[in-house]
């Protein structure tokens, strides 16, 4: 098995293991006009919660930000090819123990063959 393969395998079995730090959240792919519907699916992710950012144009208005680590995977995560930063959303509890809410994926912070690091607001 090559290092390339190991990175991809570890992303699913190690880095997004729900026995450790990951949890199951829901991915809602954006449907663009005329495209076939893509169903939402459950994926595994590590969620770094509510890092507050101030929106400077808004004076004191704050915007909670979540950083989500998912496998670059077609079923257990999200592939970098299918990701659409113009409407894809994730549903997860905004704070541990609270009911899940839907948040828009606003930025692809980092990517490699194994993992995607996403920003949600």
């Amino acid at each position, binding site marked *: 098995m090559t290092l390339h393969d190991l990175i991809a395998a570890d992303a699913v079995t190690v880095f997004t293991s729900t026995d450790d730090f990951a949890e199951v959240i829901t991915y809602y792919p954006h449907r663009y006009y005329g*495209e076939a519907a893509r169903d939402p699916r459950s994926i595994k992710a590590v969620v770094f919660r509510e890092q507050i950012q101030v*929106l*400077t144009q808004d004076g004191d208005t704050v*915007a909670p930000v979540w950083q989500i680590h998912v496998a670059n995977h077609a079923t257990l995560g999200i592939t970098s090819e299918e990701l659409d*930063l113009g409407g894809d*959303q994730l549903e997860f509890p905004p704070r541990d123990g609270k009911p899940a809410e839907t948040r828009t994926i*606003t930025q692809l912070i980092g990517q490699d063959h194994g993992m995607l690091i996403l920003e949600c*607001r």
Partner: protein
Amino acid sequence: MSLVAAARPVSERIACELFDRLQLLAAQYSVYTPVSEVIRPTRMGGYTPKHLQVVLTQNDPEVNDELGCPGNPPATAFNLLFNIRCHVMPSERDTTVVDEIINTFDADVIRVVTDASIYGEMWYTLGGFAVNAEFQTRESIDADGSFVGFNLPLLVTYRTDENNPYNVRA
């Protein structure tokens, strides 16, 4: 008669009037800009960014000494800057030029706030609560690259009793 003649201070009634006008964009006011929703954020935001979404916020009011009036009680004038944040986050598969979306969105926001056929020629009084209102220079929102759009500031000047911010003064 109660000193507080209305349920909300003048600044809040202006904000509500502006919010109501912007909400027309989410009710098929323009076929070019089908706004998804208009938001006034809560303390923690309370919304998630979407394509063609409008977020209305405001800066702190500043006293406008020149437009204050003597009297009993005297009237205090304020400048209040509203930020009309317009989010433009089209699908990555949308081939429309993003500047075209922004230019159209910008024009429709100005049109819905100033529409003489709805509000008359004195749109700038925002329902009779303001002395003046004027749009400022459009600002891009793309600092951190996470989502784009623009902010369209609207500077509103209004007057109240010095001792009663609920009462509009002409």
